[in-house]
């Protein structure tokens, strides 16, 4: 696909072995930062639990040398957990850590394949470079410079902004990207309850074919019109509705919003072989300009 024709969006296209191109939504820094913070908390939680267990066990079994061994073991496992927590979680839980799971994001290969252990290790080890440069609180820095370092993450942020797949340096090196993998799934189909839509749709000429772009526009409009006020709907719909009214030879006071819905109904919902809709009290109404002498138009 041409770079220029691609819409400015945070989606990335992946072609699967089934030769299907589907889109992933990339996860930006505002999803990844909270996930990372949760992971930091979880990591320290695990370490605290481990230390408490060690203290408890050593306290139960009262042998002198064991205490030293426990300190050694505690230090080594602190080291292992703080460096390899992310890599182990991502390898064994299909690209997710606890934080990523909570925020509905996942790490995958840039080809759309799942992440392998090797890639997970690279991207997690390089995290420390992405968190650079370190800074310290000015007041604290005077007294104990090496203790309280706050990673600013500027390098990672710049890298995320500058790459098309929103990768930090670790992601680039490992060839991975972070995508949104949401759990909430609902299939949106716009419902049309207005009883005036079906009759109006039956007056749209049968030879009018809806193009692909038109169908897409109609669907987007029908899905989003709930968020708009009636005045705004008319304002948006008029650009399409006025030429269509001319073309269909309708009276000019047909509601623009209603006309769009009628087209949507005809394109997506109406069954061509269906019986003519039961018009009820609206029977005999026609929006056509040439019928105006015969019937009284009802206010729309």
């Amino acid at each position: 696909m041409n770079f220029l024709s691609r819409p400015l969006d945070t989606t990335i296209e992946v072609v699967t072995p089934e030769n299907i191109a589907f889109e992933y939504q990339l996860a930006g820094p505002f999803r990844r930062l909270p996930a990372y913070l949760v992971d930091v908390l979880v990591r320290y939680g695990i370490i605290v639990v481990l230390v408490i267990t060690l203290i408890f066990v050593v306290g139960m079994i009262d042998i002198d040398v064991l205490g030293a061994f426990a300190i050694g073991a505690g230090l080594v496992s602190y080291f292992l957990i703080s460096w390899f927590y992310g890599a182990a979680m991502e390898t064994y839980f299909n690209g997710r850590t606890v934080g990523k799971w909570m925020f509905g994001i996942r790490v995958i290969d840039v080809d759309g394949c799942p992440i392998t252990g090797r890639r997970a290790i690279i991207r997690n080890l390089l995290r420390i470079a992405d968190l650079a440069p370190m800074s310290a609180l000015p007041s604290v820095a005077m007294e104990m410079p090496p203790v309280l370092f706050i990673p600013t993450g500027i390098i990672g942020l710049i890298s995320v902004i500058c790459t098309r797949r929103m990768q930090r340096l670790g992601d680039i090196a490992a060839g991975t990207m972070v995508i949104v993998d949401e759990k909430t799934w609902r299939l949106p189909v716009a419902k049309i309850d207005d009883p005036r839509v079906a009759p109006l749709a039956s007056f749209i000429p049968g030879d009018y074919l809806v193009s692909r772009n038109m169908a897409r526009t109609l669907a987007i409009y029908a899905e989003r019109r709930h968020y708009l006020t009636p005045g705004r709907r008319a304002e948006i719909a008029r650009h399409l509705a006025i030429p269509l009214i001319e073309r269909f030879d309708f009276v000019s006071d047909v509601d623009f919003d209603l006309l769009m819905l009628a087209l949507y109904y005809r394109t997506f919902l109406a069954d061509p072989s269906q019986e003519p809709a039961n018009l009820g009290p609206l029977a005999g109404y026609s929006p056509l300009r040439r019928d105006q002498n015969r019937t009284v138009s009802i206010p729309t």
Partner: protein
Amino acid sequence: MNIAKLLEKRRSNWDELERLCEAMEVRGKTVKAGEQYRGAKGIVRFATLYRGVCADLALADAYHLPPATVTYLHRLVARAHNQLYRSGKFSPVGFFDLIFRDAPQQIFADPCVRVATIVFFGLFALSMYLGYQQSLFPDFADNVVGSEQLSALEQMYDQRIDGSLDHYVSMSGYYIMHNTGIGLQCFAYGILLIPCLYILAYNGVALGTMFGYMAREDVGGSDNFFHFVTAHGPFELTAIALSAAAGLRLGVGLFHTAGLTRMDSMRRSAHRSVPIMAAAATLFVLAAFTEGFLSPSPAPYLLKAGWAIMSSALISFYFVVLGFPRGPRRSPVRGT
């Protein structure tokens, strides 16, 4: 055409696929969705449904499906795809190949390894000499490490190694954490080049000075110090230099692209640095075991020195004999 009807027809299949995806989320087993999906049956059903959704997505344009539905299909296919192609597990054969074939060749051929080794061991040896020469450079050790640090170091090695096991065991735990941490930091910062070289040089100088200082005749705890560090020294120091080299390889890939795009250059240098890092990790593990079991033990110094000589010989064999270039067939990923 009636989309609502079409969607209604396909809807049940999509729902079923979603249920299966949910069931496979944690362990990849379809049986959680119901007894009828146990074993191969569930997998076959999943594959059928997945192909169906793929077909629906491919035809979405022709059907004029509304964009929201297409988005839904994209997500459903992505989700099923993630379950179908799950992350690969660790394979021992691949790891063996990586360690004993790719890594030494890569290490032998890579100039980054030479740079990192010269920086680290060069500064280490130099500052060791400067720290040792009490008469020529009396203030060097004090100025570099600090007199407080030095006296703390002396105090730490005050106790005899065969009498105080608990002291040295917890110390080796600390050193495993600390020194491996240095190695990993060197690797991570290597992508930015300068911080890596800084950390590497700093630690080379500091460690060298401490070694030199402890080697002076009049310093207390000197015997215990060498008793403790000799056995694991070769493994650990080499591992630090190697992991810095792996990091530098990444950084060189980022800044010197050799005509490739920056992305591709990074990926290729990552590919080249992985074997080096794997070798470094193996050395770190060996060092950790030595440090955990042999170093703090009251075994005679001869045994520890023997182990150090043997490990140095093994490392040399590994780098030079296994690493010697042997023609195009077995060569690893090469530079430009």
